[in-house]
């Protein structure tokens, strides 16, 4: 019973974190067909800038709640600025080019962001556990669980609902869907495709930075964290179907529970299980669980 409860909690927390770091990647790919490798850089920048904001905030002895706001504000600011620079100065020049070329461009951007991180923050990591510790722990049965981790589950649920609502219930969401299905047809019907692209990339970038920001208090923020994240985030969205936010949610849940199950019952398979699940899904459904084959225009 205790083990089952632990798997449930561990799987849910890990899945929530995966969904938070993967949702921006899915959104950008779904709408813009850009495989944004720079997402890892945005995650890292979000983590570093949030860590800096948290450090500065808590050094002044201000109330704990404000530290959470400083963390989120830092992520939004850095995601907005980097997203705007990447989209307006770089990516807009490659929308008509092959998707592989665009992916390579974002990879180059990722490498530049990694070096920028070292230039700005140096090699030593940042350690800002104040929000994580301030949240405390709660006992679920006999298992002590971090309240901060449970807050991540709530945030993931909020993001899932928010994205569903925005896409399905707002005018912008309908425009976004129109661009997603056929960019040229949407433009012909008067949709401002450039505006949709810029907005989507900015939102995706802010979500990437937010993923890093909310992770910062629970890790040692150090060089290279973006690399690890981008690999696992790609696995999650590949399982779910590259363009589907619902798919990313299901992919995150599958990976989260598969990993938790492995750690508890076969820890030697911890590394293997995530990619085994991905391989099985892609063998059975090459476009992911919620993806579908799209006819290529010639």
């Amino acid at each position, binding site marked *: 019973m205790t083990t089952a409860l*632990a*798997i449930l909690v561990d799987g849910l927390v890990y899945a929530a974190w995966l969904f938070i770091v993967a949702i921006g990647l899915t959104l950008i790919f779904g709408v813009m067909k850009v495989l944004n490798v720079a997402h890892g850089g945005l995650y890292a920048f979000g983590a570093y800038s949030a860590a800096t904001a948290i450090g500065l905030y808590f050094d002044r002895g201000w109330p704990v709640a404000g530290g959470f706001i400083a963390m989120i504000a830092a992520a939004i600011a850095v995601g907005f600025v980097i997203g705007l620079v990447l989209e307006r100065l770089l990516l807009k020049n490659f929308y008509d080019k092959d998707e592989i070329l665009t992916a390579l461009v974002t990879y180059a951007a990722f490498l530049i962001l990694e070096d920028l991180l070292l230039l700005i923050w140096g090699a030593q*990591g940042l350690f800002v556990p104040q929000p994580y510790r301030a949240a405390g722990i709660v006992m679920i049965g006999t298992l002590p669980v*971090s309240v901060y981790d449970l807050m991540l589950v709530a945030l993931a649920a909020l993001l899932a609902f928010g994205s569903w609502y925005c896409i399905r219930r707002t005018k912008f969401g309908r425009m976004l869907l129109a661009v997603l299905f056929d960019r040229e047809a949407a433009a012909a019907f008067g949709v401002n495709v450039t505006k949709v692209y810029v907005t989507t990339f900015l939102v995706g970038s802010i979500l990437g930075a937010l993923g890093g920001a909310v992770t910062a208090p629970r*890790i040692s923020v150090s*060089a290279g964290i973006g690399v690890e994240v981008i690999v696992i985030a790609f696995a999650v969205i590949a399982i779910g179907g590259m363009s589907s936010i619902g798919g990313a949610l299901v992919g995150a849940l599958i990976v989260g529970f598969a990993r938790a199950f492995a750690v508890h019952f076969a820890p030697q398979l911890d590394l293997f299980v995530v990619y085994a699940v991905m391989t099985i899904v892609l063998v059975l459904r090459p476009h992911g669980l919620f993806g579908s084959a799209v006819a290529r225009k010639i």
Partner: protein
Amino acid sequence: MTLLKKATLACAAAVFAAGTTIASAQNQPVKIGFPVFLSGPAVGAFGEPSKNAVNLIVRAMNNGELPAPYNQKGLGGFPIEPKIVDEAGNTATVVTEFKNLVQRDKVDIVVGYVSSAGCLAVAPVAEELEVLTIFYACGASRLFDERDYKYIFRVSSSQTSDAVATARYILSKFPDTTSYSGINQNYSWGQDNWRDFKLAMAALAPKVKMDKELMPKLFAGEFGAEISVLLASGSPIVHSSFFGGDLETFILQASARGLPQKSRLLLTVGEQILARQGKNVPDGTIIGGRGRHGMLASDNPINKWFLDAYVKEFNSVPNFPAYHMLSSMLGLKAAWEKAQAANGGKRPTTDDVIKAFTGLAFETASGPVKMALGKGHQGIEEVAVGTYRYNKATNQPELYDLVTYPAECVNPPANMTSEEWLKKGMPGAKC
């Protein structure tokens, strides 16, 4: 021109050319390549302190500022010309960079490499290119257990000595220990550490059982599920060879959920984060540091010089990778100057230095080193282990109950591999 005149002129030209070459070689600096992590996740814990150490040590050596017997300038008077390169990347990249150092930059010697995978990949290439290469921080015992090398040396002990020392420490300080668990990174460093620790525990205390063995991905950054497993296991001891960001993250997540209150943490390389994370490391944690470095270092003039100079220049305390770099450079300097003395004061060849380095014994900031294993190419040194507490009165991290194990107590004899020695119950250990 007669044949005799031609021959005389040719001989004179040859002698002049040879003389020029010798004179030139006599004045040339010793070019040393230093591959250390300048990017990636290992840069903070390993790369930065190692790079700092290179800059400090090379400058001090060139200026003759080291304490005796290392106070001669450079290497036997020859200035050192350093070239620091990035160790980051996969093994193919690491090997390519090594070849670039040798073939493009024409370095005479290479001193570097933290990653065990990098060391294992570079070693055969160094042999092929016939370049004296000193691995300064990688710990894989397999390096010299699996084959012999001519051009490869490693001054620092292998991870086997950490495992044996920490196992001995637990069993002497906590003789009631009934079981233990481990969480180690799923790659060569973590796997080899865990294997050696399990073998050492089995040899020293066969009745102590192993509860859980966890092998998360390297730099996973998320240990929630692993901590749940460890909490449920109730093991009195949790062993980990985590380093850098993974170690800091594990301590944070484990402490928040109360793991240190249920299980005593044993961190085989915990020394490296004490200066930075003193307040966050739980009291009672058992700390190792890959030998006798940092807060575990011996009190001798070399350590005093290094500690003072490092703190003055970088405003931080050197950790064990910095000490490993110092020990490696001191070993090289001792070998070079011994070879040069045997060569009548002339610049020694690579073969001369190798001959002098093989089986060499020398002093370091971390105590004496003897190149006793791997046919005289692998060093053994003392290993210190202590228990940690944060002194709130002085606001400083402290280690107490320090025990220093002699090199021959925690390393295999020359005629046995680490694994054989551990499996046979560590015969011949001199404690």
